[in-house]
C-alpha cells in the first residue's frame, strides 16, 4: 500500500478518468452548465478589458465592446504615471523585485531542501518539524518585529525587506515542494556519485538540480506570481514614489484619479495582470501539476 501512495514525480499521470456513463442529451446540458459558469466568472474580466478602451463618459456601460466610445486615452493617461514618475518605472521596479525574489528563492530553498532530502545531519527531524510548523504560521505575527528590525538596519525604502527573507529560506512552501521532489529521485544515483568521491555540493549541483527542472520551474513561476502581486510588503516598506511597485502604484492611482479618470485606472490594472496571465499561459502544464501535488494557491 505504501508504494501506491508515494507520490510519483510530476509529469507522470495517475489513473485515467472514470469512463463517462452519461447520455448525449445530458452531456450537452453538462457542457452548457460548465460554459455558463465560465462565462459568469469571466464576464467581469472581459468587461474590465473592454472598459480600459472606453471613454470615461461611457465607463458604466455594462456591455463588453467599447464601440463608438473606443479610445486609447486611458492607456496614455495611465502610462504618464504618478507625480512625474512614468508607469513604466513601476513595471520595471516590479520586474526587478520579482526577479530578485525568484533568484533568492531558487538558491535558498533548493539548498535547504537538499539538506532535508539527502543529508543525515543531527537535529534534522526537529528542523523539519519546525519548518513544517512555519507553513501555517500567520505572517502577521511577524510583521511588527520584522518592521522594527528592518527599520533599525536602514532598509526602509529599499528592496531588501522583499529579497533578504527569501534569501534566508523563509518560504517554507517551496522548501516542502522541493523536498518532496528530491525524495522521489532515486538514491542510487547520488550513492554512486558518493562512492566516486563526490561531495554533497557536487551531487547537489550535478545530479539533483539537473533532474529537478519541473520543481525548479514551479518554484520560480509561483514565486514570480506571488512577488508580482504582493501588495503588503511594498505598502509597509516603500514610501518613495520612484520605488513603487505596480500594486502600490495602482493603489495610489485610486486616490489620485478623480471621479472621472477610471479609464486610466482600468488600463493600468489590465497591464498589471498581463505578466501573470502570460506566465500562466506559457507554463500552464507545469503550474497545474504544481498545484495538484502541493496545494499551492495563486
Amino acid at each position, binding site marked *: 500500500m505504501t508504494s501506491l501512495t508515494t507520490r510519483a514525480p510530476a509529469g507522470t499521470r495517475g489513473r485515467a478518468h472514470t469512463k*463517462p456513463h452519461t447520455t448525449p442529451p445530458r452531456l450537452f446540458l453538462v457542457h452548457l452548465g460548465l460554459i455558463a459558469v465560465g462565462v459568469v466568472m469571466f464576464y467581469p474580466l472581459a468587461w474590465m478589458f473592454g472598459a480600459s478602451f472606453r471613454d470615461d463618459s461611457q465607463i*458604466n456601460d455594462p456591455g463588453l465592446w467599447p464601440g463608438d466610445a473606443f479610445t486609447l486615452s486611458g492607456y496614455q493617461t495611465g502610462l504618464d504615471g504618478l507625480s512625474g514618475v512614468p508607469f513604466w518605472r513601476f513595471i520595471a521596479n516590479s520586474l526587478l523585485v520579482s526577479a530578485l525574489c525568484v533568484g533568492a528563492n531558487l538558491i535558498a530553498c533548493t539548498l535547504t531542501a537538499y539538506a532535508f532530502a539527502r543529508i543525515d545531519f543531527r537535529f534534522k527531524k526537529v528542523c523539519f518539524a*519546525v519548518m513544517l510548523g512555519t507553513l501555517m504560521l*500567520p505572517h502577521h505575527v511577524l510583521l511588527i518585529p520584522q518592521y522594527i528590525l528592518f527599520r533599525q538596519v536602514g532598509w526602509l525604502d529599499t528592496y531588501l525587506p522583499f529579497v533578504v527573507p527569501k534569501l534566508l529560506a523563509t518560504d517554507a512552501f517551496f522548501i516542502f515542494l522541493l523536498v518532496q521532489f528530491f525524495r522521489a529521485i532515486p538514491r542510487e544515483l547520488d550513492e554512486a556519485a558518493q562512492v566516486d568521491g563526490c561531495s554533497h555540493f557536487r551531487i547537489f549541483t550535478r545530479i539533483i538540480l539537473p533532474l529537478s527542472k519541473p520543481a525548479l520551474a514551479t518554484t520560480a513561476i509561483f514565486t514570480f506570481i506571488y512577488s508580482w*502581486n504582493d501588495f503588503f510588503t511594498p505598502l509597509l516598506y516603500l514610501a518613495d514614489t520612484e520605488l513603487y511597485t505596480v500594486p502600490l502604484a495602482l493603489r495610489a492611482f485610486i486616490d489620485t484619479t478623480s471621479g472621472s479618470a477610471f479609464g486610466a485606472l482600468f488600463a493600468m490594472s489590465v497591464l498589471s495582470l498581463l505578466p501573470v496571465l502570460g506566465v500562466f499561459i506559457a507554463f500552464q502544464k507545469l503550474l497545474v501539476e504544481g498545484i495538484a501535488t502541493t496545494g499551492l494557491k495563486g
Partner: protein
Amino acid sequence: MATDTIQRPRARRTTPSPRARRRAGSRNNLAGLMFMTPWLLGFVFIVGGPVLASLYLSFTDYSLLGSPEWIGWDNYVLMFTTDDRFFASLKVTVTYLLVSVPLVQVFALALATILNRGVRGLPIYRTVYYIPSLIGGSVAIAILWRFVFAGDGLLNGILGVVGVDTSTSWIGEPDSALYTLVILNVWQFGAAMIIYLAGLRQVPNELYEAATIDGAGTMRRFWSITLPMLSPVILFNVLMNMVGAFQAFNSAYIISNGTGGPADSTLFYTLYLYQRGFVDFDMGYASALGWFLLVVVGLAALALFRLSRRFVFYAEES
C-alpha cells in the same frame, strides 16, 4: 483494500550499513550545517526571533519612538474589555471564514466531480476555472471588484438590462460589503478544484464498479465512496483555505480604502492589526493582536485535526 489492488514493485532500499553511516556522520553534520545555513539564519532572524519578539512587545507600550515600556497584560485586558473594533474585526474575519471556506469547497468539489466523469475539454475548463485563483489576490482585481459592486457599477448595470432597477452600492452598504469579498473568495475556487481533481484520480475505479454492481446510484456512490476517499484532501483544502482566510487583507484594504468600512463591516482582523501598527504606530498593541491571531489559528487548526479524526478516512487503515 490492499488485497484487491495490484502492488507496484517496491523501490529497492539501499541504505548504507551502520558502520559506514557512523563514519559519514560528522561529515554529514558539517555538510548539513552548510546547506542549512540560510534557513537557520532565516529562522533566527526572520521567523522564530520575531515570533518571540512580538510576544515580548505585546506586553509593552511602544510607538517606535523611545524604547518599549513594560505594561504587563494591559494590551490584552484592553483588547478584551473595551476595544469594540477588536470584536468587530474578529466577527468580520470569522464570518468571512465560516461563509466562504465551505462555499469554496462546495463549488470546487462539485465542479471537480463533474469534470472527473470524463467530460471532454477537461484541460480547457480546468484552465478557465483556475485563472481567477492566480489573479484574485491582486490589487487590479480588487479595483475591478470596487467597480462591479459600486452603485453605478457593472452588477447594477446588468441588473438594469434585465429590468431590475437598483442603485444600491453593494460595497457601500454595511450589510452587503463583506459578502462582495466572500464572492471574490469563492470566485477563486479553481485552485481547490485542481487539488480535488488530483485527489479524485487516486480513487480506485474498482470501488465504483463494485458499488454499481451492488445497485448504488450516483448520489449513493458520491456519499459512500467519493467523500470518504477524498476526506484527507478535503481536510487539507479546508486547512489551507482557513489559514488563508484568517490572513485576508488586500481586497478589503483596496475596497474600503484602508478603512475597513462602511461601519467596520470589512474590517478584517489583519486590516485592524495593520491600522493599529502602521497607522497609529501602536506597536505593542498590534503585537498583542498578532499573538492572539497566532493562538486563534493554532486552536482552529487543532480543532480541525480533532474533528478530522472522526471524519477523515485513510485508506491505509482498513
